[in-house]
Every structure is written in C-alpha cells, then in structure tokens.
C-alpha cells in the first residue's frame, strides 16, 4: 500500500513584483492607521472604551431626540422644540467633542515620536508634510463621525417624521445640509489644530491633553474675568483668546441667529466674522508650527 506523504517546500524569500502605490499608498496607510489608532482598533479593548464612550455621548442624544419627538408628536427640530434644532445640538455635544480631541490628538502624534516610529516613516516614500496632513486627516475623519453623524440622523429622522414622503421632506429640508457641514467644519477647525499643536510639542499624552483642556476651558474663565473686570484700554481684545467660544459665535452667524450675550466675544463687541477670522488664523498658525516641528525632526 502506498502511503501518501505531504511535501513541504521551502520557498525561502519571494520577491514582490506586484504594484507599488508609492507616496499615495503611504499617505493612505498613515490616514488609516491614524483612524484605527484614535478609535483603539488593533489594540487592547481598554483603548476602545473612551473613544466609543464619547462617540456614544455624541450620537445617542440625536437618536433619543428623534425617538422622543415621535412619541411626543413634536416634529419641529428647531430652537423652540424641547430638544432644540441642529444648531443647538452642536452646543450640546461641544464639550464631548472637545474631550475627544484632547484625547485623540496626542494619541496620533506622541507615540510615534516617543517610540522612534518616525524613523520608519522617514525611510518610506512619505514627506514630513505628508505625515502631518495624513494624521490631521485621520483626526478630521473621526471628528466627522462626532459632528456629522448625529446631525444627519436628526435630519433624516425628523424628515421621516414630518413629511408626507421621506424623499419629499429630505428635499424640502435640503437647505439644512450646507449649514450642518459648514458648522461642523467650523468646530473641527476651531478645536483640532490647537490640540495638534500641543501634541506636537508635548512628550506625554496626559500632559498634552491637560494643557489643551486648560487652554480651552480654564483659559476661557480667565479671559472672561479680564474682559469684565479690567479697566485697561483695549481689554476687550482679551475676548479673542476665548478660543472655545468662537465656533459657537460663528455657528449662530451661520444659522442667522442673533448673538447671545452669554458669549464673551459678543459681550466684548466683536462681530461674528472676527471670530471666523480668529478660528482660521489660530488653525493656520497652529498647523504651520506643527509642520515646522516635523520638518525638523523627520
């Protein structure tokens, strides 16, 4: 009887002769890795807890609002409704988004520097600018989940509840979409670049998160004190340092709402466009400084 035996072939090293994606492939890989890193994918379960908890905090209220509106037969997603409208929702999740950015930006930048991984990037077809923009792209991609997903859930949900037909109502309310996207971009641009800047220079993730939150939250308290208590000439300009308030002021501008006097920048007498300019300026300067840092170290 013949016994069949398996044969093991040692193929040794096999050269790769398939397609190479070059710089485009390297950038795509960096963005994808950034998204995975922020959300804790390919890492232990504990790394997933915080980002998904914050994502749930950002998205679940929208689901709940649509559900309750259905139960209460209140289908008007505007400022007068018990749950507010699209503009109010940005305020509602503002702190959640801020906390997420405070955690995500250091996670994207600091481990690569701390563990020497930058030397791997430097040996691949990837420029320092590519690395910075790819990492920033990762942050924006995940931020869009926080800022856009709940808004579109509300948009579709309320459309389904109010209109004769879903499609008809979606079209009738299509004017909301540019406002939602523009406001989301304003929040992302106001929150993400300063966090990136801090993370680009801090050595520890916890320090970076702490410094960023201090600048954004505690800094606002200081600014409010200066604006209200100081009698020095020009003290109102201190209001421009209230970075966390600028997106709220611009959001009100986008939605055509009168500025609330709760906002320090409004109290200080600045027009909303000044806040828009501040957001763009701070974002631009922050990203330039991050690029400068990485052009020197990669």
């Amino acid at each position: 009887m013949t016994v069949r035996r398996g044969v093991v072939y040692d193929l040794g090293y096999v050269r790769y002769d398939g397609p190479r994606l070059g710089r485009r492939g390297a950038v795509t890989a960096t963005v994808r890795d950034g998204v995975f890193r922020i959300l804790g994918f390919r890492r232990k379960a504990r790394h997933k807890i915080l980002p998904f908890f914050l994502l749930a905090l950002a998205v679940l209220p929208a689901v709940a609002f649509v559900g309750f509106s259905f139960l209460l037969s209140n289908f008007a997603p505007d400022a007068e409704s018990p749950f507010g409208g699209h503009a109010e929702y940005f305020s509602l999740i503002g702190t959640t988004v801020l906390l997420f950015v405070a955690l995500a930006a250091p996670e994207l930048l600091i481990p690569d520097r701390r563990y020497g991984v930058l030397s791997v990037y430097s040996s691949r077809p990837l420029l320092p600018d590519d690395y910075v923009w790819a990492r920033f792209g990762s942050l924006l991609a995940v931020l869009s989940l926080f800022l856009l997903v709940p808004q579109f859930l509300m948009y579709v949900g309320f459309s389904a509840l109010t209109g004769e037909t879903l499609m008809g109502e979606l079209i009738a309310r299509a004017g909301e979409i540019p406002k939602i996207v523009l406001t989301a971009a304003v929040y992302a641009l106001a929150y993400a670049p300063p966090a990136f800047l801090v993370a680009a220079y801090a050595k520890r993730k916890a320090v970076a998160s702490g410094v960023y939150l201090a600048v954004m939250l505690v800094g606002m308290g200081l600014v409010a004190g200066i604006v209200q208590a100081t009698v020095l000439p020009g003290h109102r300009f201190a209001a421009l340092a209230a970075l966390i308030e600028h997106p709220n002021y611009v959001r009100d501008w986008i939605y055509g709402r009168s500025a609330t006097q709760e906002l320090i920048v409004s109290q200080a007498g600045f027009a909303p466009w000044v806040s828009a300019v501040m957001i763009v300026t701070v974002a631009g300067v922050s990203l330039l400084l991050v690029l400068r840092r990485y052009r020197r170290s990669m």
Partner: protein
Amino acid sequence: MDQPAIETRGLSHAYGTVVALHDVDLRIPPGRVGLVGANGAGKTTLIRILLGMLTPTRGAAEVFGLDTRTHELEVRARVGYMPEGNCLPPDQTAADFLIYAAALGGLPSRAARQRASDVLTLVGLEEERFRPLGGFSTGMKQRTKLAQAIVHDPELVFLDEPTAGLDPEGRDEMLELISRLGSFGIDVLVSSHVLGDIERTCDWVVMLEGGRVLRSGPLASLVDVDTVEIDLIDDPEPLMTVLAAAGAEVERSGTRLVVTADGKDPFLLVRDALADTGTGIRSMGPRSTSLEDVFLAVEGSR
C-alpha cells in the same frame, strides 16, 4: 565597477560646529557593504543622508543614480532602513506593525498582509506575530526591526548597528539573517563598530573615522592571506637567517615566527628554508590579516 549602488562626491555634513562627515567620496557596488567606524565616525549621518533624511552641508549623494536631495521619495521607495534606536510601538502586535510598515512602503493591503506574514516567518517570529511588541526581548525586537526594513521588498537595505545589544546567540542569528539577504537579491549596507560582524557578513568595506573615509574596497583586498605563522621546536635563529637572505621579513616572538614576503609566496620561502636548515616545527599555517589589523594600521599611520 558598473553602475554603483551608492555614490558620494565631496559629501560633507556638520551639526553646527561639529563636523560629522568631511569630503566623503565613495563609489560602492551592489552587494553586501560594511560601514565600519567607531561611535561618532559619521556612519549614521551618512545613512541618513543616503535616505534623504538629512540634507548635506556640501557635496552630493546618489543611490541607484538618484540624487538623495531631489529624488528622496524615489530613493525611499526602493530602500529599507533598520535604525539603531527603537522604532517599534509597544502596543501593536508584530503582525499589525509589519502590515503597516509594508503599506507605508507602498504595498496594497492584501500584499502587505501576505508579505508581513512571510517576512515574520523568515526572521523566525511566526509564533510571536500576535504578541504586542512591548513584550518582546531585545533579540526579537532587533529581528522585528530587520523585518520592517525588508517587508516591502526593497532593493537595498540600510542596517544601522543591527547587532547592538544582542547576546552572542542573538548576534549569530542576526548576522546569519544579514548574510542571507544577499542571496535574496537585496543589497545591504550594514554599519557597525564591531569589525568581526562586518568580516562575517560583507564583501565590501568602507572604513570611516572622524567623518573621513580611511579605506573603501573589497574585503578580500583588505584582509589578504599573505603571511605565514610558524611555531618552532628548534632554535629559530638559523631559519631566520636563511629567510632574511631570501628576502623575507620575519618577526619573532619566542618560538613563533611571522613571515611575510613582498611579491613572493611566503609559503614557498618557508618550505625551502625549513628544508635547508632542517628546523623542526610544531605548526605552520596562514595568518590572515583581520579587518581590525587593517583598521588599526590605517588609523595608526594617520
């Protein structure tokens, strides 16, 4: 030499007032090349310039005929790099990191996964592929670093002190892997301050000292077998006299003689002299000049 893999012309680099490389001219062929020098000799600086990570203060460097200042992306698409320091994220598994390293090298996702698996097997880490890198021993980390340098199948790989921190067994395994790279068709530039490592793995040597090139050439031409060493039973004097008369140069240390003969075969001279004098010997054999001898001799002559 046809097309050199690496060429530098008047290459200089300074960090502020500290000169790391000074007027380095090199033409290095494909193959396994050793970059030898003490710490601070300029080895890492040269590698970083060749990768386009540093812009030289003066001069030019080319890899595969591509200027590293203007074509760094094309160069990097064709090379790999194993840095001397750490480059491994501790919270990622070896498999995930290798897949990512391959994708960064431009490989599509599916090919990256396949290559990562193959290369981890090649470096002997197939059993450890799903363990976080933070728990790896020094030897496993070094092998992972080598794996990330070749996972995208480069034509040339730069290895910066690949045996640093390894125990003798780990060093042996690493040198064996480096030796095999040549048979895979991957050219290697390996930097080390351990001359024995270079002798075991390379066929071309570049010696650097203080940012200058001491020697650059085939290993065989630097470490010729041109000397005979004899251990004598009888009095060495008669033999030394005959050898000196025949034009050999003889160094004596007790009953041991080291014989060299410029332009002649020292074995033949010793054979004839032994026959003439009837001197008894305990042993006789070639004495190869080690890379260390060459390095010390060149350094001493400066």
